[in-house]
């Protein structure tokens, strides 16, 4: 079942197009990652999904219902973890979660149980009676999450939930994302941290200048740029290497010598490793190591956008 479906979603601010014709579908049970540099349009997209911002054009369907026609339904099925921490400094952790959960109509013992459960989930049970002013950045982020999950939404949207926090809190948060997912929640996750997205997301969309420029599983994304491969060969004395002979081998595009390493870029669909090795043996150059470089998401991102994620 599709939890969320975006069709030609567009948002303008004056002449500036922040989100440009974004279309995608997210299935139940997915952890869907949004990757993009600063100002790519991630938060704007998310704000439209959560009903905070009207789209200039396009449709948003949550559980097959158009959200602007079913506002209450949509809002009660979404748990929003905003990029900017939104909690009340004057209320205790417990009161914060209780207040937000109450807005979704929970009352009485059910409310109490859900609040305790949410605090437990983010590991703040022992600090429930404390005020967030005394919390670390990571604890505030965790409280921010607890406020969004107590009403057990179908779709949880996390906008950079791990910005600026210690590794311990980050692991805690990543684990809880996994746990929430195992409990049946569908999750949208945006981040600047490639390794996070690579670790937890089942599907990823790369968004740049408001447009989705690539979308798919990690493997599919990598496959986009794997029409070439890099072979790194460590040698003893590269002085006698004849680059033009090496380049003449079928499929080889580029050869660079970097100290003791000969870096060969080759077409991926030509099986030429044997002939390359043969060349080294024939030339009497001693091979010490052979590495085939697998492409990672960083290279994917770099290739597609011309920038690294944290430019």
């Amino acid at each position: 079942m599709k939890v969320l479906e975006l069709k030609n979603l567009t948002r303008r601010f004056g002449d500036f197009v922040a989100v440009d014709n974004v279309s995608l579908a997210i299935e139940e049970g997915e952890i869907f990652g949004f990757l993009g540099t600063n100002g790519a349009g991630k938060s704007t997209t998310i704000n439209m999904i959560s009903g905070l911002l009207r789209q200039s054009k396009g449709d948003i369907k949550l559980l097959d219902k158009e959200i602007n026609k079913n506002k209450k339904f949509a809002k009660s099925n979404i748990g929003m973890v905003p990029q900017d921490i939104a909690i009340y400094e004057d209320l205790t952790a417990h009161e914060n979660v209780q207040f937000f959960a109450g807005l979704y109509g929970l009352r009485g013992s059910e409310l109490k149980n859900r609040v305790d459960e949410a605090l437990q989930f983010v590991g703040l049970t022992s600090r429930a009676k404390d005020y967030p002013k005394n919390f670390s950045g990571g604890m505030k982020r965790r409280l921010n999450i607890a406020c969004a999950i107590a009403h057990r939404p179908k779709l949880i949207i996390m906008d950079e939930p791990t910005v600026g926090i210690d590794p311990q809190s980050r692991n805690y948060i990543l684990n809880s994302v996994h746990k929430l997912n195992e409990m049946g929640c569908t999750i949208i996750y945006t981040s600047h941290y490639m390794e996070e997205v690579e670790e937890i997301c089942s599907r990823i969309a790369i968004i740049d200048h408001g447009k989705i420029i690539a979308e798919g599983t990690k493997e599919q994304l990598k496959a986009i740029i794997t029409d070439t491969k890099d072979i790194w060969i460590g040698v003893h004395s590269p002085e006698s290497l004849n680059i033009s002979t090496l380049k003449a081998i079928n499929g080889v595009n580029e050869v660079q010598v970097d100290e003791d390493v000969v870096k060969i870029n080759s077409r991926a669909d030509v099986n030429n490793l044997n002939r390359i090795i043969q060349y080294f043996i024939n030339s009497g150059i001693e091979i010490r190591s052979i590495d085939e470089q697998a492409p990672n998401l960083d290279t994917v991102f770099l290739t597609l956008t011309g920038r690294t994620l944290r430019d």
Partner: protein
Amino acid sequence: MKDVLWLVQNMLRILFKSKKSVLLTLGLPIVGIIISLLMYGGTGTTNLHVGIVNHDSSRITTDTIKFINGLSHVDTKTVSPRTAKDEVAEGTLDCVITFDKGFTKSVESGIPDHIQIASIKGATVTGFVKSYLNNYLENIASFSKVANGHIDTYNQLYKTYQQSHFKVKTGTLKDTSKNKEMTYQTIGYLMMFMLYSAINLSGMITREKEGRTYFRLLSTPINSRKYVLANILTNLCVMILQIIIVIVVMTNVFHIHVSVPYWEIFVTLLLFALIAIGLSLAVVAFASSTSSMGAIENLIVAPTSMLSGCFFPIDVMPETIKKIAHFLPQSWLLDTINKLQEGQHFTGLYLNVLILLAFALAFFLIAAYKFSRNNQVSTFL
């Protein structure tokens, strides 16, 4: 509606968790009472000026006038029937007692009559004099019944009474005019503090926008209309509390006599509460941040309060400023209170009530218009 009440509950909780807010909302109005007490209460009580119009010169009238003059904090002066009215109107006299022809006879015959008390300041002024006077006259009248026509017996009784009653006569005058001024000024200060606390509470909207919780709230099933409604209701609760506290503390702790039924003061101040909320919402709608809100607040609250006579009576101001005051809601409220204190009935003050309601409505409309414009340009950063 359930979710609105949930919001109200939370707003009250946040408000009363902060000691500063508690002090601002509940402490300051009481400070207003104390300031008023210091302004009017410190110098002891003033005298009640009673004018006497005497059409019935006789021993009994002379003694009665002596009796009135002998009451503590009362002095009398003889006035002509023609000037009496003017002097009361100007305020040089608090009330006028007229002894008509036949007064002495009526007393001697046992049924006192042909005496009138007139005042424009209402029942509390005359009530004090009246109660003593009635008591006095009834005693004298009773002698004639006891004497049963014996002139000597009557004279004897009368003489004894005249000598003794000066000894037993006591009574501290409840100083009504001063009490009124204190009430008036206390309400003046209360209004200013109501404005401050209303803006402080509506400012929660601005603070929540800056603190991002406002947008977080809008991602829950709450919409902005419900949110503003909850803010208004919270504000109303707080101001009702303020009004009640001031009335209770003023009358029960400081024993200031308001001389207007409590409910009339309450309803009048409730009208002002609506004005304060409307104004504070307008301020919030125009202010883009908490700091600009503070600036607007400083520009509006204290100056208008001063110009309307919330700090000291407006009579001391020059004419031009008095004219400006007509455009300020506080002066209309003080005017209403004044008229109520003069003994006018609430129902007769519909013009004042209408003007006050119009102020409230105008502020609400301005706020609503500005809010809707803000939404159109969608400030979201």
